[in-house]
């Protein structure tokens, strides 16, 4: 017979005001197997926990039901306390009287009855609980950082400086990310390249960091501490060891009119190229879509010119599988394109550009060498309109959220423009100015007050072209909704920050959750912001939500700290909520019949084959076995198994059956 203790919590007024806790505690005394039932104001408080621990000892309890808040809140707390009192922590269960009862029902007998019922169910469950022991798994102390922008670089450097190996995977030919495209950064207006480039070089030269540029993660198997990551190293068509980065091939490449991604289509590049002069590594790649040789079978000029014979036209993609202990996602974001705006001409006007294009126009290393020239005819724009919240906070565009960085960079853009074209007129259409950050609001004020940027609070309904001008039709809501028409030479849309292309695909590869906009989901919005729901995978930067540089870097260091913390142990312990295939004495061995129908149902490929052998070595049966390191405890296999050979620890058939019998 079980000796179960029930501890009913008032949670102050939270439960107590609706549920008659005293009565509930009294009712629970009548449940067979319950030897101790009390109520207390705050069970989670120190005295509350102590009370429970003392009762465990005094009444020799072998199981505990804490009737309080959601187990998602305090189950770890009470299990720890129960464990400290000498019983197995998994002999403690929680009945959710707060979120599922007192907060959602009116005061009354029915609610009190429900509270007692909820406890009764859990008491029956606890009677069938088994003591469980945490699973220990070894840890491979190598981290993988996916994404080589400023966030990824920071994570990699922090982990590497912590003494652990890091593999930094970047899909494009160079690390640097969006930050390397920026001209100046707010609120200090220091040159982006100047502060980023040293970090890029540091990462490249760090003995603990292995750079894998022009590479993409293809497959992730395994689990925390023991991931097996397959990376596709795309063929640069070049022997990186031989290439010195002299650039001769680039100079001689006959195919020079290719739209340049790094310059956001505002400049051109060759078919063999490095994305930008400061690229790390400074080794070119051949763009297969545009290379004359791959299109026509003739050319090979680069091969002829290369002084070290580094060009390899026959090079193939390479798949590399790595043992990884932790993964940090730092895959960044993308900007909504101007063609997403019907009201602004679906991207057909060359002089309507997005924020990143403006960065390139303003950048000293950009296609105009930092001279303000509008894309259509290269003229210096005399009037520029900046439109904040282009797409952001707009349900019709599918982006109800605030993109967070646009207020600041729009102010910066207007300022940079005014610094370059002193006589120019800059207008900013905005909804609200969100300049929360150190020195941020001061920065915006400077744009308005010192650089005389005209801020108009209102939306722009339409832009059309007339006589070489862009007619911007908007409204000034601070002037009673008065229509405003501005004849502009160039319009800059602060387009919405969106999750990166294929981020959902990547999330599915890594088994991490993501929100409806494709941003990766953190494990807890407040308390676990750099972790994902998948153990061992962490987040940094704008792949989680729109972020600016300081925030990205801070989060990157946070994620790095998590990884370093994980790597501080030889092995780590995991919750024993895993599926198990039963084993019985010969000649039955197991009720598993070895049909392996469960294998397909497992999302984690955790179901392996195990052979039962006679002493002679002859295989008697082939059974399923569940790798406790891979199993995450979803229980899909349990429901699939016909012979009930698989059971889920913590949510076993016996436990659930007992709960059901109580209803």
């Amino acid at each position, binding site marked *: 017979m079980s000796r179960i203790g029930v501890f009913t919590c008032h949670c102050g007024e939270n439960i107590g005001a609706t549920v008659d806790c005293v009565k509930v505690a009294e009712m629970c005394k009548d449940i067979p197997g319950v030897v101790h039932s009390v109520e207390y104001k705050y069970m989670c408080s120190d005295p509350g926990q102590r009370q429970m621990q003392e009762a465990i000892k005094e009444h020799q309890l072998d199981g505990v039901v804490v009737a309080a808040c*959601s*187990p*998602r*809140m305090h189950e770890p707390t009470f299990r720890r306390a129960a464990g400290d009192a000498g019983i197995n922590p998994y002999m403690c269960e929680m009945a*959710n009287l*707060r*979120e*599922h*009862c007192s*907060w*959602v*029902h*009116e005061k009354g007998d*029915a*609610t009190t009855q*429900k509270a007692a*019922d*909820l406890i009764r*169910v859990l008491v029956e469950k606890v009677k069938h609980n088994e003591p469980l022991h945490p699973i220990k798994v070894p840890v491979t102390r190598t981290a993988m950082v996916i994404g080589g922008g400023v966030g990824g670089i920071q994570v990699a450097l922090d982990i590497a400086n912590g003494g652990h190996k890091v593999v930094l995977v970047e899909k494009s030919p160079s690390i640097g990310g969006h930050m390397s495209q920026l001209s100046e950064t707010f609120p200090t207006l220091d040159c982006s390249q100047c502060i980023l480039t040293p970090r890029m070089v540091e990462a490249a030269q760090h003995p603990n960091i292995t750079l894998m540029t022009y590479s993409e993660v293809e497959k992730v198997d395994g689990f925390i501490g023991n991931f097996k990551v397959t990376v596709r190293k795309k063929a640069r068509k070049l022997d990186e060891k031989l290439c010195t980065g002299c650039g001769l091939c680039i100079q001689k490449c006959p195919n020079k009119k290719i739209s340049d991604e790094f310059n956001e289509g505002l400049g051109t590049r060759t078919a063999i190229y490095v994305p930008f002069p400061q690229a790390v590594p400074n080794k070119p790649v051949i763009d297969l879509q545009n290379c004359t040789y791959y299109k026509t079978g003739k050319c090979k000029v680069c091969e002829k010119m290369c002084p070290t014979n580094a060009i390899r036209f026959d090079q193939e993609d390479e798949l590399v599988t790595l043992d990884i202990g932790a993964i940090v996602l730092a895959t960044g974001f993308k900007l909504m394109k101007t063609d997403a705006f019907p009201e602004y001409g679906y991207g057909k006007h060359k002089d309507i550009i997005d924020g990143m294009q403006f960065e390139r126009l303003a950048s000293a290393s950009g296609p105009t060498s930092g001279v303000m020239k509008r894309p259509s005819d290269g003229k210096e724009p005399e009037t520029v309109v900046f439109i904040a919240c282009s797409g952001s906070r707009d349900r019709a565009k599918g982006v109800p959220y605030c993109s967070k960085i646009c207020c600041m960079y729009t102010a910066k853009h207007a300022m940079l423009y005014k610094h370059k074209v002193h006589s120019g007129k800059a207008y900013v259409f905005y909804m609200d100015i969100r300049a929360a950050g150190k020195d941020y609001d001061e920065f915006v004020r400077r744009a308005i007050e010192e650089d005389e940027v005209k801020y108009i609070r209102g939306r722009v309904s339409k832009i059309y072209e007339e006589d070489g001008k862009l007619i911007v039709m908007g409204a000034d809501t601070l002037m009673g909704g008065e229509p405003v028409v501005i004849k502009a030479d160039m319009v800059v849309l602060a387009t919405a920050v969106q999750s990166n292309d294929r981020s959902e695909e990547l999330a*599915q590869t890594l*088994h991490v*959750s993501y929100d409806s906009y494709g941003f990766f989901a953190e494990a807890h919005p407040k308390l676990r912001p750099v972790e994902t*729901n998948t153990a061992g995978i962490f987040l940094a930067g704008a792949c989680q939500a729109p972020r600016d540089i300081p925030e990205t870097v801070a989060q990157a260091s946070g994620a790095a700290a998590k990884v370093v913390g994980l790597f501080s142990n030889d092995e780590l312990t995991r919750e024993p*909520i895993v599926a198990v295939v039963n084993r019985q004495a010969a000649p039955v061995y197991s009720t598993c019949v070895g049909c392996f129908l469960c294998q397909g*149902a497992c*999302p*984690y490929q955790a179901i392996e084959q195990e052979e039962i052998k006679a002493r002679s070595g002859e295989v008697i049966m082939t059974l399923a076995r569940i790798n406790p390191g891979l199993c*995450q*405890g*979803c*229980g*899909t296999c*349990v*429901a*699939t198994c016909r012979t009930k050979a698989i059971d*889920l620890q913590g*949510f076993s*058939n016996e436990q*659930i*059956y007992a*709960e*059901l*019998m109580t*209803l």
Partner: protein
Amino acid sequence: MDEKFEPKITAFVCNWCTYAGADLTGTSRIKYQSNVRVLRVPCTGRIDYMMVLKALHKGADGVIVSGCHPNDCHYTSGNYHARRRWMVFKKMMEVMGVDMRRITFSWVSAAEGARWAQLVNEVTDQVRALGPYAEFRQIIGAGIE
């Protein structure tokens, strides 16, 4: 029939979405009817159809089975497997003449606290209107001398 018939509703919900969603209902102080008793399992993939049948056996007048929306499964695909299982199970129950108005399948995410309240209320009202599941009750004990 008892004039004050109050239906018994049993809900099987996954830990990560619907249970968390129901927690949010609480945190948001959205009220709903108290007829439902929730059983927490890790994932809809864990929900064996026998649980649903047992709930009816043990006197439930209505059953709710709920988990993460497609694509949102904490375990990436448990809910897809569950969905298939339900598609077949529902068909079977219909063939056997079980009243499927009493079994509700739904997706309620961790963010849908209001939706959980609405679902529970809708199901409770619907089952209350249907009355006790007398038909099913009749076969319990039938065939015993």
